[in-house]
């Protein structure tokens, strides 16, 4: 497919694009900074500039849009600016794509939408594992920007009839990140805010490929995470220790991720190709 990819120069984008190229897709990267990856056309531009976005789409036709461009976390820029870039950027990009007749759109949402990630103090989720029907009432402006993005995506799907998918991505990691995993084994507390979940960037790319090639999905929200947590610890113990009192709605596998990806696997047939265990010795 011919794909316009926004934010392809970021960490998640570059790993996902590498997979899309392997699958034979043609990618144009629309980003403030060039990616510089062989086989990818870089188009410099700002997602909050409607004219630049419209012009980029006119370089098509594109069969699909992938929208990853965003301020990827709070405390990088003032909250109001982060909210502006993420919310207006998504609204501008999706509407422009709809007007250009793009029939498939995939946007980056985030597990931070569940609210624990950047909460002030310790926030408990409504229930575990976190699935796509769990309440999303984050108190921080970054998580809020993702709530707004998903709401806009739902509207654009209703307006245009295109397939519009929101990928609630967990922490995106690559092979170079796994060496530090053992630091967390004895002290997992810092990983609580991410619900002990992660996604390998290569598997994110594989899931994205499936999302782009599946037909007739309408509007969908999909968690994207590895099947297992980032720890060699029993998930039930993690829940007891770090989420006391939170209802657990079904039995958890021994080291099953607390971010449920059943929908991703059922709807798209996604299977993990990677695990941190391939890179790090598991302690006994």
């Amino acid at each position, binding site marked *: 497919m011919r794909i316009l990819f926004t934010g392809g120069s970021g960490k998640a984008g570059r790993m996902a694009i590498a997979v899309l190229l392997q699958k034979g897709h043609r990618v144009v990267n629309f980003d403030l900074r060039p990616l510089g990856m062989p086989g990818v056309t870089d188009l410099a531009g700002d997602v909050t500039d409607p004219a630049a976005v419209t012009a980029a789409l006119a370089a098509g036709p594109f069969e699909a849009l992938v929208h990853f461009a965003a301020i990827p976390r709070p405390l990088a820029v003032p909250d109001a600016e982060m*909210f502006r870039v993420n919310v*207006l950027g998504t*609204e501008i990009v999706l509407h422009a794509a709809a007007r250009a007749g793009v029939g498939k759109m995939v946007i980056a949402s985030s597990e931070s939408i569940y609210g624990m990630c950047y909460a002030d103090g310790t926030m408990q989720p409504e229930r575990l594992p976190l699935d796509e029907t769990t309440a999303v009432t984050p*108190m921080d402006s970054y*998580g809020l920007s993702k709530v707004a993005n998903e709401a*806009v995506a739902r*509207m654009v799907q*209703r*307006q245009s009839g295109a397939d519009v998918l929101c990928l609630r991505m967990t922490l995106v990691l690559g092979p170079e990140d796994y060496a530090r995993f053992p630091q967390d084994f004895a002290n997992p507390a810092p990983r609580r805010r991410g619900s002990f979940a992660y996604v390998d960037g290569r598997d994110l790319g594989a899931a994205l490929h499936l999302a782009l090639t599946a037909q007739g999905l309408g509007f969908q929200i999909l968690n994207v995470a590895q099947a297992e947590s980032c720890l060699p610890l029993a998930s039930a113990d993690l829940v007891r220790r770090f989420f006391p009192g939170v209802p657990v709605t079904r039995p958890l596998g021994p080291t099953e991720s607390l971010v449920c990806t059943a929908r991703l696997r059922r709807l798209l047939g996604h299977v993990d190709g990677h695990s941190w265990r391939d890179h790090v010795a598991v302690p006994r």
Partner: protein
Amino acid sequence: MRILFTGGSGKAGRHVVAYLVAQGHRVLNFDRVPLGLAGAHDLTGDITDAGQVYSAMRSHAGYDELETGTGAQLFDAVVHFAAVPRHGMMPDTETFRVNVMGTYNVLEAALKMGIRKVIIASSETTYGVCFSDGVVDPKVLPLDEDYDIDPMDSYGMSKKVNEVTAQSFQRRFGADVYALRIGNVVEPHEYATLFPPLADDPGLRRRITFSYIDARDLGQIVDLCLQKDGLGFQIFNAANDTNAVPQPNAELLARFFPNVPLSRPVGDVEGLLSNRKIRAVLGFRQRHDWRDEVPKA
């Protein structure tokens, strides 16, 4: 109370500001154009400029407040009505930008600076019927606040984003933040022209499920919200008790919404944009039934 009111010069705002001033509140109107109402000072500004919004949160409400010598004080409450008020006035992207960023700025500034009560204007258009492309049915009637709102137009969407923004900031700060899903606002002078044609053609108001809110009764609702504390985040429909058309619901439903299920029995002329919640929670009692406001022929 000392109130910072955004958008007080607009169609709805001007009546609400007048009502609040009449109740004894001190109101500073923050708007791009002055209202010019005696008793409400005008501060000209733009809600999409976060700096101006932050600045306005702590300000004198009039020149007389200079006499106190205590410095500009934080307002007790913010009422936020400023917005592009409907679909089709500006390009969609601009409507979305002004409404979404403006509301974000107002909520962030108010709550980060320590104001504990914010009331924002949402809209009945969030129910997704009003500005939809083509004839769209509501999923269920009457329209209650727990409806799964999914507007397909950028104006309704901007208001949905406003509501989730309000909910998020309320959760962060624990203050009271109430969103009013305001129905079609009718000013006193509009009854004479707007209502008589509805006897022959109620379909004119299908997109707003035949509802209305008297601008002065809207003032009462805002005042009740200002007086009511401790509710956290709330969404309230702001509508009068009955539909704005003379036909009974049995006829309206059969003719205009034949395939829409009812969640409960509705009264003969009960408003399909339900105001049960404001009556039960806030004690709202309407004072301006359209039947009394339309001049007799």
